[in-house]
């Protein structure tokens, strides 16, 4: 997993509540058996004016000029500013894969759907939850300031605005540790293989019908 310690980048606002994972990556792209290559189809239905299918050359497709990520001032954005319940709906990890493949490293918003939040953390993508008032201010500042950038520091758990104001955020210590060290969670869990076997042995005795 890609390490996340500190990231400074251009911010793009996705000014809409309940952005679902179907919007982030539409289902036709879920037919892929790979983990990469989803970036050109991130927000496909909002981003392009035509209908997207897997395997297309997206550089030739007509862009929707109204969609925020197509606007020149947000080109190269690596931090998305988001509203309530971002990433709701399907558990598809293709959503964080698409965000990461597009170049997004962090999301800053009021709330994220549970499964999506979890999936981001498995892919070196940091979702930052901030109070609604802070997020509202960030939206106002981003819209008023072309080239608006934020500095996100996972070590100190802060988001720093261009005016120097620092906003503190919470994250589970264990998740933070994994992210900062890019740890392979499977390897980490397998360190406890004996504990798993012991548990399993007990379960086999107590509920033998669960085993075949």
């Amino acid at each position: 997993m890609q390490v996340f310690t500190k990231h400074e980048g251009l911010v793009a606002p996705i000014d809409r509540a309940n952005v679902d994972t179907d919007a982030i990556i539409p289902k036709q792209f879920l037919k892929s058996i790979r983990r990469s290559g989803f970036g050109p189809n991130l927000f496909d239905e909002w981003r392009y004016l035509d209908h997207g299918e897997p395997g297309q050359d997206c550089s030739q497709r007509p862009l929707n000029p109204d969609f925020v990520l197509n606007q020149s001032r947000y080109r190269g954005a690596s931090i998305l500013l988001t509203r309530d319940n971002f990433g709701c709906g399907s558990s598809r990890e293709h959503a964080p894969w698409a965000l990461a493949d597009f170049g997004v490293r962090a999301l800053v918003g009021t709330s994220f759907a549970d499964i999506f939040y979890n999936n981001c953390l498995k892919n070196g993508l940091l979702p930052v939850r901030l109070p609604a008032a802070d997020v509202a201010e960030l939206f106002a500042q981003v819209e008023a300031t072309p080239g608006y950038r934020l500095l996100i520091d996972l070590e100190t758990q802060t988001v720093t605005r261009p005016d120097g104001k620092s906003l503190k955020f919470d994250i589970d210590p264990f998740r933070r540790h994994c992210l900062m060290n890019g740890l392979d969670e499977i390897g980490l869990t397998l360190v406890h293989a004996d504990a798993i076997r012991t548990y399993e042995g007990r379960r086999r005795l107590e509920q033998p019908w669960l085993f075949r």
Partner: protein
Amino acid sequence: MCAAPRTLYEKLWEDHVVRTEEDGTALLYIDRHLVHEVTSPQAFEGLRMSGRKLWRVDSVVATTDHNTPTTHWDRGIEDPVSRLQVETLDGNMRDFGALVYLPFRDRRMGIVHVIGPELGATLPGMTVVCGDSHTSTHGAFACLAQGIGTSEVEHVLATQCLLQKPSRTMRVDFDGVPPAGVGAKDMALYLIGRIGTAGGTGFAIEFAGAAVRALSMEGRMTLCNMAIEAGARYGLVAVDDTTIDYVRGRPYAPDASHWDRAEAYWRTLVSDPGARFDRVIAIAASDIAPQVTWGTSPEMVTDVVGRTPDPDDFEDQQSRQGVVAALNYMGLAPRTPIHDIRVDKVFIGSCTNSRIEDLRAAAAVVRGRKVADSVRLALVVPGSGLVKAAAEAEGLDRVFREAGFEWREPGCSMCLAMNADRLEPGERCASTSNRNFEGRQGQGGRTHLVSPQMAAAAAVAGHFIDVRGMV
């Protein structure tokens, strides 16, 4: 000394903790892993690349459902990209193994959340995971069942465990008796309308109350299935006679040598009297009317006798913008009576509403009636091959066909339109599925979520109509 009363969620959680990190993150043991073709290929590839095997082959139950066609099975899967994904699962099952794999065209193949319970592969007290958010369905059996992403699928395949922190607990009491024609789907949509699609975020929701006790297992599965649409990873219903009776005799249920012990344990899977929940919501079931969504989120829902909202009634600018955008996408004016909304297509199916009882309820409305001429396509897609066979044995396929419905092969179908079943831009659908997101059933398609009875009634009338007058 008396132990403190515990919720059902707490009992299930504590029963599966292998060990706990300092910050409270637990290693949670997983009993059942359901696998389908869409969210598993990258996980198996990950195992291959790191030279890992399955921790426990007999925990895996797999099938193909998302990509498979619902017509002309003799022709195979015509879309080469879908076919490759399905064949990839075939290959992974050959290489890694499973307790049971129901491949494309197996007579028992079906939606993963229908076949688990049907086979008795979903049993009370289990932890159940699947790379699919609607895994909450299995909570109807007092299972700790949740949807996970592909990295976690790989993690469970390799370690039989998940790393997780406990959720907060919510109990939703549906008290009293719902009106005739109002069912589990309406109860779920009504709740989501009340608490919102993020109302359950971070919670495990236990559904309780007389109206839940009165539901069949099929109805409870519908309710738990929709918990994720309220933002909750888990839905739960306590074990009672209905649960035990459903499980008895299923292929992977305990045999006679273990049955009594299993049943005795399962009977303990209820919240203790006095157990504390972080949030409790009470709903009078008698207040619930048939529900119809009008927007692009399941929380955008109202009674069939209601109207679409007026954005001007919303003071908060965010909400107003959301309503404007949704009405615009749905091609609906403010204050449109739900009754006046005409439909182009009708879809009865999905992991929410494709079980035998759903088909019986829809057929009861359709019987002796015809699909309206203005409806271009009315589809019934049974949840599994066994559901299809059971429905045919009862003659339900004839009821639907004679009315003008198409009777299809099982699968996820038009719920998410990964196969050929989809809406064209601008088409409007009465759908028994679970998500009315933009483009969910096809780019530009307009989805209205309803119960099977309401979908059947809309097919007959050509527009939404109160099914309470038809049953």
